[in-house]
């Protein structure tokens, strides 16, 4: 327990005065943020609120975007995109091993595929997978690198509702087993509440709300205690619910 707390005190990601703008329009307006190592954080925001911009900045993918500020992130970072982004010309195992080095890489790849429930599909082409399976393979590809930080940009946005629930459970399981820091970008308030231990709301280029969700896992959408968090988050997003 003590080591766990110690881990949490060492920040994995640190943002200081981070600004990003596109053609003079400020998207991120001086963000200060620390993500402790091993924390599961969700980042909520309207579409166009800059949450993807933030994630891409942390991933180091924003070539040619104007901006300032200090940014530190761990060395091993994995990204899961909204589309599974599997190379159509490589078999599933080769996709999982993309960029992996070393002799035992193939073994780790197989293990990662088994972990996401795709054992036996190593030789399949990505075109033969369903949307859910493809996203599982993308998760396996992210896991193989044993990331210290896992960045996920609306990873379940393109999946159907049933598949999404199963993927939520899978992601949480994987997180509990490997304990990377997770930054999950989503526009789905329920997804954020069910999965994350801390939810940030991005409004006008700043962190408008920083909410710790202190509730045991696994969580269900229907738990009344979570309803309070839901209302606070919706209010922060400027949405009022009339019952």
């Amino acid at each position, binding site marked *: 327990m003590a080591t766990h707390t110690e881990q949490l005190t060492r920040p994995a990601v640190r943002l200081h005065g981070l600004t990003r703008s596109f053609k003079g329009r400020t998207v991120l307006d001086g963000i200060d943020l620390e993500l402790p190592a091993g924390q599961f954080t969700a980042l909520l925001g309207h579409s166009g609120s800059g949450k993807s911009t933030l994630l891409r900045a942390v991933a180091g*993918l924003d070539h040619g975007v104007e901006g300032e500020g200090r940014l530190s992130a761990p060395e091993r970072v994995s990204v899961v995109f909204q589309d599974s*982004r599997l190379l159509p*010309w490589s078999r599933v195992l080769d996709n999982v091993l*993309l960029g992996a080095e070393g002799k035992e890489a193939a073994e780790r790849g197989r293990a990662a595929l088994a972990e996401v429930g795709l054992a036996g599909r190593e030789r399949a082409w990505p*075109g033969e997978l369903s949307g859910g399976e493809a996203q599982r393979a993308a998760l396996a590809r992210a896991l193989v690198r044993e990331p210290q930080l896992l960045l996920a940009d609306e990873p379940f946005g393109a999946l159907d509702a049933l598949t999404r629930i199963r993927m939520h459970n899978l992601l949480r399981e994987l997180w509990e087993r490997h304990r990377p820091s997770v930054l999950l970008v989503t526009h789905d308030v329920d997804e954020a509440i069910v999965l994350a231990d801390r939810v940030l709301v991005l409004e006008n280029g700043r962190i408008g709300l920083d909410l710790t969700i202190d509730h045991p896992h696994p969580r269900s959408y229907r738990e009344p205690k979570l309803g309070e968090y839901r209302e606070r988050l919706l209010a922060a997003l400027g949405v009022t619910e009339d019952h």
Partner: protein
Amino acid sequence: MTTLATAESAVTVAEDAHQVRRRRRLSPGKRWPAARLTGPLLVVVLWTAASAAGTLDPGAIPAPWTVAETAGRLWSDGTLATDVVTSLRRAATGFSIGLGAGVLLALAAGLSRVGDALIDGTVQLNRAVPTLGLIPLFILWLGIGETFKIAIIAIVVYIPMYLNTHAALSGIDSRYVELAEVQGLSRLRFIRQVVIPGSLPGFFVGLRLSVTGSWLGLVVLEQINATSGLGYMMFQAQNYGQTDVILVGLLIYGVFGLVSDSVVRLIERRVLSWRRTLSS
């Protein structure tokens, strides 16, 4: 009343329901075995029938059996074999050089801005100049030997190779490039795992165009300036009015063209087996 109503609606449903029929297929359907040979075989059959019926002037178009006999005679006295080997060597050498140059230039132009600035415009300019129009100049530069023939074939080959490979390469989805960055791929691995497989479809289009292109160039070259080769054989036959020899040469060109195209297609289908298209 209720039961009656239910019964009534059941009847209406039954009347509205249609037997489900399979939709009309819009793709051409299953491939026939050896379908590509059907057309050429039909031509041969018609040719044979017309010759047997005596509707063709044997001086203009000799009968298939005459052509076969001539081919046999030319083969047994050794001239045909020499001519075929000479032509094949020319085509193969020029083709290999053009292939390598086209692919390397496409990679250089697609992967670096300097390469793009230097190469792309130059190739487009080269494309606009009819390659066969370069023959006189090349003869003056390189002499009338083998070198200029190989150089011309290489140019005929490299242009479609470059254009198609380059187009496919620049069309690679930028999301895959981003993925390669995220996965920390080295430049070499990026080329091997993303760029090359991503541009293969265009590479094969270029390959099929240039395979036939190299044969085309060869015919012209061997008829203008040569002392051996299939084109030379046909040119000589023209002087002596030997239409059967000309037909032997044409048939060999045709067979070579068809075979090389089929080989490329076969390789293409195996290499690009991950693609499912209308033709599969």
